[in-house]
């Protein structure tokens, strides 16, 4: 086998062309890694919003809380379904919430966007979402026009700072009294207020968007589901909360991955051509060297492997740079429309060891594909080239 140091040093000697080709590969890997990190960030944000022992009940056929509508009388029936956990005072742990969209001015003045407003019994927040912490100000008082704002949308929309007010509808202002965190979940992209105030503002009295139910354990979910869905007149659908959030991210996830992959594939064709030109140049420049190696007795396959390896090393250098650059994206917050709820969700690029590995492997594959034809040309070099002047 031709020693690897031969390839490494050749790459170092031709450092300008090596870097140019490596950066081409790096750019592609950056795009791919960033889209995978974006998807992971979205999935993680939504996954963290769900708890395995919580079921969510929606109107059958609704793919999100927004278009769903569950009447208050249905909540009474849900409360007596099997498997529902009760609090220490014997009250069933069932929470009706109303979810609506606020079309708000962006704080940067560049138009408007949708924010999610969730109306809920504010005194039950800690029971269902113990991870929620007020990080500034205080919790909104039940039965008032006060709201608290998720940490990720503070500063994103006009009126979302403590002490400011915003209009839910005409002549329906609310005051921001606190900012909360919810363990990085999608709740941090929402505004929370009192359920009755929100229902009244939006004319949705006696209905909620969704009902959350604390179960005795995740194991009783099937029984609860059957009991609630059995009554066809109610027309309800039951989902485990993690499944619900996974479905919420499906469309957006498909969009992110499709866009990322499409861009990466188009870019990769360019980068592979770049790597191929570099390697062809290298083979042409080293024709006599290759002839010498062949004359000394190195086989065609050894030469081919050596040049393929060189191309892969070049690509791996680029892939490492691209992946490293993409890790910097972890510091960036990203807001985009959730294609299921049509409201903004804010999340971060999230790197995982699997994403890093996949990105680097992708770069390596580009090296193999881009280096294949030049490696064949190198392997076809006749040993007699060593004797030419």
């Amino acid at each position: 086998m031709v020693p690897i140091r031969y390839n490494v040093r050749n790459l170092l000697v031709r450092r300008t062309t090596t870097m140019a080709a490596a950066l081409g590969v790096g750019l592609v890997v950056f795009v791919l890694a960033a889209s995978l990190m974006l998807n992971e960030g979205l999935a993680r944000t939504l996954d963290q919003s769900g708890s395995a022992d919580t079921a969510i009940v929606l109107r059958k056929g609704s793919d999100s809380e927004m278009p769903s509508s569950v009447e208050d009388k249905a909540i009474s029936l849900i409360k007596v379904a099997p498997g529902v956990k009760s609090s220490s005072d014997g009250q069933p742990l069932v929470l009706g919430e109303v979810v609506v969209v606020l079309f708000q001015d962006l704080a940067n003045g560049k138009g408007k966007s949708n924010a999610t407003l969730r109306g809920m019994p504010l005194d039950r927040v800690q029971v269902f979402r113990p991870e929620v912490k007020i990080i500034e100000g205080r919790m909104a008082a039940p039965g008032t026009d006060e709201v608290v704002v998720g940490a990720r949308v503070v500063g994103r929309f006009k009126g979302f700072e403590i002490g400011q007010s915003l209009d839910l509808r005409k002549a329906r202002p609310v005051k921001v009294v606190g900012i909360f965190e919810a363990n990085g979940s999608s709740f941090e992209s929402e505004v929370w207020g009192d359920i009755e105030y929100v229902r009244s503002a939006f004319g949705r009295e006696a209905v909620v968007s969704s009902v959350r139910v604390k179960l005795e354990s995740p194991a009783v979910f099937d029984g609860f589901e059957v009991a609630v869905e059995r009554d066809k007149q109610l027309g309800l659908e039951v989902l485990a909360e993690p499944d619900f959030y996974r479905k919420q991210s499906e469309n957006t996830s498909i969009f992110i991955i499709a866009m990322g992959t499409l861009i990466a594939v188009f870019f990769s064709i360019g980068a592979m051509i770049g790597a191929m030109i570099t390697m062809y140049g290298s083979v042409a420049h080293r024709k006599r060297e290759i002839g010498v190696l062949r004359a000394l007795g190195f086989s065609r396959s050894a030469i081919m492997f050596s040049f393929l390896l060189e191309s892969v090393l070049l690509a791996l250098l680029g892939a490492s740079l691209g992946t490293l650059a993409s890790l910097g994206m972890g510091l960036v917050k990203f807001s985009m429309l959730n294609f299921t709820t049509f409201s903004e969700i804010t999340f971060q690029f999230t790197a995982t060891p699997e994403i890093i590995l996949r990105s680097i492997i992708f770069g390596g594959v580009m090296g193999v594909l881009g280096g294949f034809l030049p490696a064949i040309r190198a392997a076809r070099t006749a040993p007699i080239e060593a004797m030419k002047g």
Partner: protein
Amino acid sequence: MSEEATSAETSKASAKASDTTTAKRSPIIVCRKIVRSFWRAKERLDVLDELDLEIAEGSFEALMGPSGSGKTTLLNLIAGLDRPTSGTLTVAGTEVSAMGDAALARWRSQTIGFVFQHFNLIPVLTALENVELPLLLTSLGSSERKKRAQIALRVVGLEDRMHHRPQQLSGGQEQRVGIARAIVHDPKIIVADEPTGELDRKSADEVLHLLERLNKEFDKTILMVTHDPAAAERATVLRKLDKGKLL
């Protein structure tokens, strides 16, 4: 150089050959009716024309002739870098004219040492690493390879330059590294194509002296193509080639 002088030199070298060990030893290179043709446009060009040649084991032979006479072509065939169009070529007991590409590569790695006109060292490798290259095709371990490469560099007097890259060496030193690379795997035959062609007289003499030593002390069969009469003078046999035939 006049024709008479060249002729006299040929006779002198031939005479030298007759009283050396050449006559006593069996041939290591046997060419029988070797033809090597190339096609230029639609015209066939016979660079070697039914050439017969025997070279005895342990001899140091120089091959001279005008440009285009076929000397490098013959050297390439004997070294297993090329195949004849017809005829048989047996080198070190193996009929190389009938071998496949992979087998020929293996055979070259065991039997032939190359000394090139342009030295042909790998520029990104040190002298030691260049010399070690042929040993990478053997089953020797890393430390043994290094040891042997150091010995080869010691033989050519460049032990103190082993960690230098080719561009840090003079032309003469580069060619000596090339010779160390040619002998490190202990081949039976060394083929040298214009080994002094790129060197000044002093460096050329050093290289020729080394080749003489390899022939006499290490019993290497050396076949050298040269235009340099002073180089040819060092050989035990001088052969002249013209228009694809030995004179």
